[in-house]
């Protein structure tokens, strides 16, 4: 076989020094965080003469920081959509709902470096003149919510959050909101509905959150990891940040790797790591020496890749788009040769059926049909025509609902059938026509 040219977008990653989760004991404690230079970025923003709200936003924009929650939108650009300041309150939502299956990186930030998240929030709040920030954390993370609330109180007591921060005339509040178990709340508009104390039904856009957000006020929503990058950009410069990892998707990235590898877990490396480096080098290879079969690069909704498709593919949004997938949240699931892809897809479809909020018909009904049909094939009772019905169903769901949950449910079905079709066919009855149903007179 011809050797493909393999080049990583992550540069010399073996020499990489961690910045989001540096190896410092008890870094979650305010005193330790401060000793490490914590809150110096906030101080220079608020008290130095180098920064004003606009230049902070410009720095974040030019750093190339893209949202880490899945959509990979330029964070600074998103901030710039906020309308000019008027008498209304303005809100920032820090999205820590983290419910995309395969994603478990934000919890590590919340536990080990909560003050970096707070500092990022405060700098963003300064840049956008935010009145209050809501950190929406999924209800399952009860222990981590308690942990963060404890640390937040210390930051309040120290005068880093609240009224007249660091003795300046800038004031802003942070409130931690506890969810109660709903995947849909990770979607930004349903997150806002949930904050308002409603059933979390996504809203139609437009109006976009910057115009009409939570409680009807101008709002920006950023992921936990996105906001954690902000103090680093202020401290070390937009150019430094832009120089890390993949050019079009710059910065450090938390890779959450799970499944059949020897060392699963969250890893911090530059963006643009080769998938093969992550699996065979970082995670020490496949468990039990098994062969790799499939990889889901960034959470359950990102299209699955066959082992033969990941050679030379880097973990950044452009590289993954080129091979027909997405970076998503960077939560990578690795599956070995023993994995039954039909059973796996059945479980994924069950997830989306369970989590559909029920607002839009194509999703509410469609996710149920997806689960039923994949289940029928898995039970050995499907026929080949069911595969076509499934693909047709995907067409009827994608892009036809208020939010992207229907798309997220359809993509795994479409791409898993496309890329592992023989496995599905092997479980189907041979005939295209259910001849047993024919009534011939």
């Amino acid at each position, binding site marked *: 076989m011809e050797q493909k040219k393999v080049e990583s977008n992550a540069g010399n990653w073996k020499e990489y020094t961690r910045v989001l989760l540096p190896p410092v004991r008890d870094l979650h404690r305010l005193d330790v965080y401060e000793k490490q230079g914590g809150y110096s970025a906030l101080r220079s923003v608020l008290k130095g003469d180098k920064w004003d709200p606009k230049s902070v936003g410009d720095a974040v924009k030019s750093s190339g920081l893209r949202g880490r929650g899945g959509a990979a939108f330029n964070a600074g650009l998103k901030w710039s959509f906020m309308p000019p300041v008027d008498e209304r309150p303005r809100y920032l939502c820090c999205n820590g709902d983290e419910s995309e299956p*395969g994603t478990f990186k934000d919890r590590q930030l919340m536990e080990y470096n909560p003050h970096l998240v707070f500092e990022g929030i405060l700098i963003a709040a300064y840049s956008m003149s935010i009145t209050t920030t809501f950190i929406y954390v999924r209800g399952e993370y009860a222990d981590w919510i308690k942990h963060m609330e404890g640390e937040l109180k210390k930051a309040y007591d120290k005068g880093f959050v609240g009224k007249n921060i660091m003795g300046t005339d800038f004031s802003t509040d942070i409130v931690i909101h506890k969810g109660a178990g*709903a995947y849909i709340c990770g979607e930004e508009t349903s997150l806002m509905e949930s904050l308002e104390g*409603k059933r979390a039904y996504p809203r139609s856009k437009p109006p976009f959150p910057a115009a009409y957000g939570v409680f009807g006020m101008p709002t920006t929503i950023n992921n936990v990891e996105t906001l954690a990058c902000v103090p680093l950009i202020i401290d070390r410069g937009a150019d430094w940040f832009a120089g890390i990892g993949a050019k079009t998707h710059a910065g450090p990235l938390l890779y959450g790797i799970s499944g059949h590898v020897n060392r699963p877990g969250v890893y911090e490396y530059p963006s643009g790591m080769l998938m093969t480096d992550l699996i065979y080098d970082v995670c020490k290879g496949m468990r039990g020496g098994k062969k790799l079969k499939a990889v889901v690069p960034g959470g359950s909704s990102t299209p699955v890749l066959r082992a033969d498709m990941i050679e030379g593919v880097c973990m950044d949004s452009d590289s993954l788009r080129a091979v027909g997938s997405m970076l998503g949240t960077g939560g990578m699931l690795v599956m070995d040769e023993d994995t039954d892809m039909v059973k796996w897809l059945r479980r994924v479809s069950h997830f989306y059926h369970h989590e559909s909020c029920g607002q839009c018909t194509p999703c509410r009904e469609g996710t149920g049909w997806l689960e039923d049909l994949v289940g029928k094939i898995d039970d050995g009772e499907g026929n080949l025509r069911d595969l076509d019905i499934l693909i047709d169903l995907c067409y009827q769901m994608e892009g036809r609902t208020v939010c992207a949950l229907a798309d997220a449910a359809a993509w795994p079905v479409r791409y898993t059938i496309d890329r592992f079709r023989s496995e599905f066919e092997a479980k189907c009855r041979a005939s295209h026509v259910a001849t047993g149903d024919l009534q011939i007179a």
Partner: protein
Amino acid sequence: MSGHGAEIVTLPKINPADAIPADKLVFTAEEKAQLQEYKSRYPEAEGAVMRGLWFAQEKFGFLPPEVIRLVADELGIEYARAYGVATFYTQYYKQKMGKYVLDVCTCFSCQVCGGYDMLHHLEEKLGIKPGETTDDGLFSIQGVECLGACGSAPMLQVTNGPYVFNLTEDKLDALVDSLRSGKMPPFTSVTLPQDEEEMGGNRRSDAAAVATYQTPPVAGAVE
């Protein structure tokens, strides 16, 4: 045939024995103050309904309609609004559960790492199916969606509280025994694999139990 809609949550019939007696169906002055504090965090009272329901669930164990009404009245919001929220989110218990609810993750990362084996082991050990409660009222088990701990699969959560990682059948047996004696699992801090090389694996000196990264048990069969 039945429709394919997202599960419509009809409130289960509540066993009369579980009903909360009228004289117990009150918040103390202290608890009322706490609810008002939650309310003060939001620009509109409705924002506090989720915290309010959590608070009530911790006190009463579950959320029958009369408890939902109590929360709504205390926050000064519509009962229908609070009811809608209580029935939308899966972590609010609509009926009385066991003292310990074992939420076993079976979502895709845990599925391929043997999550269902763990669930079935519990079913056998406790003699109940997912969604059921043991006769002594101690345990309920559920198969749940992703709990955000995929690197430590398979795993479970005890009553919306502590996580237990890297499950094995032996670990489950030990967990059930310790819960029977009233002992909840400690908070476990799972470090990054990189920490192991760079700082000996232990990041926190204050966590009750710090589990450094460990190679998970060999994956069970895919269910």
